[in-house]
Each structure stands twice: as C-alpha cells, then as structure tokens.
C-alpha cells in the first residue's frame, strides 16, 4: 500500500463523520484497490505503474467521502451502537432479576365448567367428610359487584351433607364451598388480595360465618387461590354450616360495603 493511496483513503475518511464506520469503509476501499492493482499487474503493468493507474481510477476522494458521509448518518450510527449495547445490558439485567418465577401466572384461570369433583377443597382423600359427603344444593351469585374497577362475582357455591355418628347418635354435618371471582382488565395490577381476609357470610337464620382471621376466630376458611393477569379466584369453605335455608350472603364491610346473595337450588 503506497502512501499515496493511504492519503487518498484518509481524505475520504476525513469526510465521514461517524468514526466507527471508518474502519469497515477503509477495508472495503483497500480491498478494491488491491484487486485493481493485481489485475493490472496480471496484464503486464509493473507494480508502481499499476498502483498509479489504480489510484487514478478511484476518483476524487472528497467527492467520494462526502457522498459516503450522507449514507453513514451519525445519528443513526450512534443510535444503532447505543441500541446494540442497550439490548445486551437489558437482557443481562432481566436474567439477573430472575423473572421465571412469574411464569405460572400466565396460565389462564378456568372460567367455566364445573368445580366438581373437587368441591370439598380442604379435606383430604380418605376422610369421611370427603368420601361420604353428597352435594345437596348449589347456586351462583345473584348479582355482580363493581368496585374501583374490579368486578366481583360468585360463579359457584354448593352445600354438602355428610352423615356422621357420635356416641350411637346419627347426625348430619353440613359444609359449604364458595368460589369468589374477581375480574380486572388491568394486567399490571396486583389484584384485591386484601379482601380475602375480610369476607364473611350470613344466612337467613342470622348465622354469621366470620373469616378465620377474625380475632375471635371464624369458620369461613380460605382454602386456595388461583390467578392470572386478568382474573383471580379464591376458594372458601364454611365448616359446621347450619342446615341450609334458602340463601347464603357473602359480604365485605370496608370502603363501599357490598354483598352477593346466593340462592340455593337443589343439586341434581
């Protein structure tokens, strides 16, 4: 490479404002020049004359440089470089923050269908409550409630009866399962987690079933929780339910208090 061609390339590159591209442009122009020199040598030119001819064929370096500068826009070049490093840094941050524990929240919560045979959520297989209970009534919430952008409903509730015996006396025990659903389009929201500890139930005989977290204790027991970004389901069980009448009402006492009534109908 003669210093003349080196000067020519430098004059071209001086016009290219985006410095990171200069190296690649230099390599391409040098490759071109070398190919031309070798071609001329192959047809009989001596080395020095071939170099002079090839250099002369390259054209005005300032004109070439200026038109190259128009293509290699500095703003796009810097944006590209920043994005190249930015995307790498972002993914490293993400992997270090361990996002994978949230993957289970992508599974959609079931919206329809029967909640049976898993209706007695808190009892283990093999216990008389689970094995010998029969469902005698079921129902759904008579209305939905809208509060602060959430829609609360009771998509399923049931009453179970289990025949038991104690000291020679036969008697029936009743349990109720209640599913409370909250729908919300705000996928970024955490959901109404607090209300699960504050719900209570009452029936028309004025029997009140308080939350298990009540300081005096209660038998409205939270059993399980299921959620995706748009829906949350809380499963409750009421133990030692009084013999069911016509309805059960689920209520929440804070903010703008609400209640949802479940009218029982005989289970088929």
């Amino acid at each position: 490479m003669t210093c003349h061609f080196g000067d020519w390339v430098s004059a071209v590159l001086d016009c290219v404002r985006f410095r990171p591209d200069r190296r690649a442009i230099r390599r391409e122009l040098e490759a071109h020049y070398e190919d031309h020199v070798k071609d001329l040598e192959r047809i009989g030119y001596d080395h020095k004359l071939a170099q002079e001819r090839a250099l002369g064929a390259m054209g005005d370096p300032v004109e070439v440089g200026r038109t190259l500068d128009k293509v290699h826009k500095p703003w796009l070049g810097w944006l590209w470089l920043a994005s190249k490093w930015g995307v790498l840094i972002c993914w490293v941050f993400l992997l270090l923050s361990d996002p994978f524990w949230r993957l289970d929240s992508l599974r959609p919560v079931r919206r329809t269908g029967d909640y049976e045979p898993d209706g007695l959520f808190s009892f283990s297989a093999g216990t008389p409550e689970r094995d010998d209970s029969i469902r005698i009534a079921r129902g759904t919430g008579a209305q939905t409630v809208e509060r602060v952008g959430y829609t609360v409903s009771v998509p399923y509730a049931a009453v179970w009866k289990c025949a038991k015996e104690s000291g020679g006396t036969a008697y029936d025990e009743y349990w109720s399962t209640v599913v409370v659903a909250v729908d919300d389009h705000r996928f970024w929201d955490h959901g109404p987690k607090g209300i699960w500890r504050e719900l209570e139930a009452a029936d028309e005989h004025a029997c009140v079933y308080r939350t298990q977290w009540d300081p005096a204790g209660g038998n409205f027991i939270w059993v399980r929780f299921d959620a995706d970004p748009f829906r949350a389901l809380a499963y409750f069980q009421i133990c030692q339910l009084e013999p069911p009448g016509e309805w059960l009402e689920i209520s929440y006492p804070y903010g703008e208090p609400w209640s949802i009534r479940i009218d029982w109908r005989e289970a088929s």
Partner: protein
Amino acid sequence: MMNLPRWNRTQKTIRNLLGMALCLFLLLWSRGFPARTLEGLVTRAERQYLLDGSTLLLQTDSVGGGHELYLWNQGSILQVYYDHTWLGYELDAVRLFDEELGAFAGVDLAAGKQEGYYPIQLFVFGDLPDAASAEMDITLSYTSNQVVSTCTARGARAAENCWRFDLTRQHGDADTSQQARWEREIFAGSQKDRYSGTLRLYGENGALLETRDIGQFQRTTMRWE
C-alpha cells in the same frame, strides 16, 4: 468463511430497540409492574381492599429495610410496605387495621431532616369520642426498658378519630448523658425506639372526656399487649 446475509443498520436498530422494549416489559412484569409515582402506589394499595380516597398520614422507614406508608380510610388504617427502586415503587404488602384503639409511630421522611434529625410522629386512632383537643404523656424508651425521655405533647387532628403527636428531642446537643446519646440515635433513624403513654381527650369547654392508657409498642406495630 461464509456468513449469513445481514440486516441493514436501520433494521438492526429497530430490532434492538424492540428487544429493549420487550426486555423492559418483562423486567417490569417480573417486579409486578412497579408504580411510577407514590400516588400510583397508594392507589394500588387501596385497591387491594377495594378502597379509594385515602389520606396519607405518615411515610416512614421499615424495620429491616424498605419503607412504609400509613393511610387513613374511613376509620381504618392501611399499612403499606413498599420498596423504591429505579424501576419505581414496588408494592410489598398491605394490611388493614380496624382497631378499637391503635397506635403507631415513625420518623417522618416526607418532612425531611431538621438540624440533622428527622421529626418523629406518633399516631393514635380508633373508637375515640369526638374531642376538641388531645394531649398525651409520652415515654420514649431505648429498646424495651431504657427510658430516654418523657414529654407531654399536644395533639393535632390527622383525621376523624385519629390524633397526631409530634415528638421533639428533649436532650440538647451538648448533653453527653447515655439518655441523650440514645435519643440522638433514635432521632437519626435507628429502630430501637419504643413508645408508651397516656392519652387524654378534651371537649370544647376543656373538660376531660376520656383517658386511655397505651402500652409499650415498637415503631410500626399497631397493637400492644
């Protein structure tokens, strides 16, 4: 050496920027989409209990790191634990207190430092008679049994059935006693403070309506034994 055909610079830049946007979205998702402002955090905390329109009473530090907010909403206190990171305000836990009589205290971060120390505020709330004014004899202790100072503070109404008492340092900067050192440590933000006291509520005519004893409690514990 053969390489695959390349995208042009504009295509690569767009791809990278979309990759960054996706990554940022996943990062925000992994952290529960932190709120951008404190008001946003308060709204999310309220929504956990289907509430809105709360009043901020106190913004303070948590024992063990992080921060806490205390909000008043229709006679109940919302205790909100959160972290403030570069992504925003990450909600940790929210609890609702609906006490017959409750109290909490903490350094007031929102007020900022005054002469190098944060002010401390003590709040009493609950099923209280409608009073025109309140007063409280407050005993400040270092851990559970080292009395640091006692004072009588006048109350300011923070919300309906909620009174605020501002604590000031009783020992001067020149005081080199152990109590003074403990007091300076407490007002600088150490979490070894304990509070107890007697609350007095007065009617319009200055008549004493009620006296309530408040047993010793830690900085941000709502109940006491």
